[in-house]
């Protein structure tokens, strides 16, 4: 775990030296399971800053909500760093206006898995590298970290920030990049019928609250296609057609832009699995175009870089 005091000191330095107007990080929430994203504007505020593996959100989602020219400091993990890069590529934020405090990430703990494991009324969560100690109403539990990791974090292959201005803590070993591919291949091994049944089951639980959209750093359109009135692209209610179209198109709009952070899935109030959709698209981008989102802040995603060389790919 990175030293929280070092993070705080760095955040304080940024603010007191006037290098940034605001530092984006987390503060302790009302309950131990839910730390809140917070905006620190003065060095004194920074005392509230916390860093834990329970920080569920991708902070990059707030970047497009702040004024474009504002100077922002951010505590970033691997996926958040890649999202920032993707936003910089899409010219949503200038890299010069950003100061990234990088933290190697050991994976995000899924609060739902914790509750499922230890029961209601979690009083405290203490983590070490391998294990997590949880106190709930029914007593103390020592659980292996792996068991509580969020699904997308288990497949993560870039836990280290790729372009942070300062890295706090020792970089972790890059993990096996095949895990994501295996997950996609495992799903594709199912028959068409089974796959559709799975998709239906997941998509049709949707209540269309758009938490996935709002939690995603790359969903920054001023007007989403589902809010469009003329023409109306999909059925707007919680009908099968509307729900399926939402999940298909939301995911497809992320092609070459998704960093597999899993924030959409963690935000969903109905526990809908969504990363199996974006993982497939990421997998294809890697196989077909050798592209991974956000590894640098220059390379454009495949759908934005069409060349006539492509014709050789498609000639039948």
């Amino acid at each position, binding site marked *: 775990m990175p030293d929280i005091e070092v993070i705080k000191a760095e955040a304080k330095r940024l603010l007191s030296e006037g290098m940034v107007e605001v530092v984006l990080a987390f503060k302790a*929430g009302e*309950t131990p399971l*839910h730390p809140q994203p917070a*905006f620190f504007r003065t060095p004194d505020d920074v005392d509230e800053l916390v860093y834990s593996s329970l920080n569920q*959100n991708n902070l990059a989602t707030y970047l497009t909500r702040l004024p474009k020219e504002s100077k922002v400091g951010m505590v970033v993990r691997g996926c958040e760093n890649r999202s920032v890069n993707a936003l910089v590529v899409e010219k949503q934020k200038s890299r010069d206006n950003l100061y990234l405090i990088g933290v190697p990430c050991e994976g995000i703990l899924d609060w*739902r898995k914790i509750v499922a494991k230890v029961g209601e009324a979690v009083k405290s969560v203490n983590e070490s590298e391998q294990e997590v100690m949880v106190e709930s109403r029914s007593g103390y539990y020592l659980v292996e970290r792996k068991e509580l990791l969020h699904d997308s974090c288990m497949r993560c292959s870039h836990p280290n920030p790729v372009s942070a201005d300062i890295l706090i803590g020792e970089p972790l070993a890059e993990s096996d990049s095949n895990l994501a591919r295996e997950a996609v291949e495992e799903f594709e091994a199912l028959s068409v019928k089974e796959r559709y049944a799975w998709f239906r089951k997941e998509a049709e*639980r949707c209540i269309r609250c758009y938490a996935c959209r709002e939690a995603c750093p790359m969903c920054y359109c001023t007007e989403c296609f589902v809010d469009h009135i003329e023409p109306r692209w999909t059925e707007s209610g919680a009908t099968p057609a509307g729900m399926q179209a939402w999940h298909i198109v939301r995911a497809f709009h992320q092609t070459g832009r998704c960093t597999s952070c899993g924030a959409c899935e963690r935000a969903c*109030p*109905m526990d809908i699995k969504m990363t199996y959709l974006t993982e497939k698209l990421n997998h294809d981008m890697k196989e077909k175009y050798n592209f991974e989102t956000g590894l640098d802040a220059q390379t454009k995603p495949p759908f934005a870089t069409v060349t006539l060389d492509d014709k050789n790919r498609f000639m039948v």
Partner: protein
Amino acid sequence: MNFILEKQALPDLLQTWRANFDVYLPQNLERFTHFMPLAAEGVTVINEPHNTRIPPKALFLPMTETLVKFTRFGGYENAKHEIEPRIVFALRPCDAQAVQLLDTSFLQVKYSDPFWLERREKTITVALGCHEPCDNGFCTTVGYGPFNKADLDAMLTDLGDFYLVETFSEAAETCFNGFANASETICVQALEVQQRAHDQMPVAFETENLKEKLEQNFSSNYWDKVSLSCLGCGVCTFLCPTCFCFDIVDETQRRERVRNWDSCMFRTYSLEASGHNPRPSRVERTRQRLSHKYVYWLDQVNQIGCTGCGRCVRYCPVGLDIRSMLRQAQSLPFEVSHAS
């Protein structure tokens, strides 16, 4: 009337009801519980002190519901919904209270919503009191409670091997026909359980003068502070048992006019055709959500429009907590002048 219902007898009872009613009760759906009609076999009564993920308001105000059908030559027809008599079993008192609050909106004297009315009239609600406190609830704080009896047909109190059934309507009495009457001692015992459950609920914030404080600080920067990390999704409102806003949309292909749940946290909610938006940012929208529950409901029907079920607290993707927001509101300045 008070009856005793042995826990063993419950599955059979539910099946008996199925002869005449659609029986809705919380059942496991994937990783959470959801009100679903009871099938011929397999009974799951969710006994944890836990709410379903989607509040039972969805049984009365479905997520999507047809209001009007378009006829071929530009005409309109009333939509018809086949609604069978139903029993909603094991809903929690907070959710039942919420349905009563929604009645004040949907069953106004002049404009009574026909679809809501029909569903309400054909439903018998049998609540299951919460003998153990739930995790994020704060029902006693807002003036309700784990055994709040408002607007119920019957209420169950868990007493170990059996339930004490208190019925408040004739319809419910016939449902429990043939069960043994509860003795005085059992009723006293139940009262103790109920009182203990009530006392166990923590007080999350003070409600005294809260209305005046929120009202008078309408343009305070308090709202900027509490809405800062809000994402603007609809989780808190869609999962709220008392949120009832809906949108009316024409589904051209289906030739229907439908109503869908809508949320005051969405940008398009109050966006006008001219491009003007009275609530342009998350600050105003958060203010609307909180003020509606803690100011406007009080003005309208003199009840707090939040029943303390705790869903918005639990499922907010960024951990925003209405309890802490209101606790912060308690330190706002206010004048007592017109609080008479």
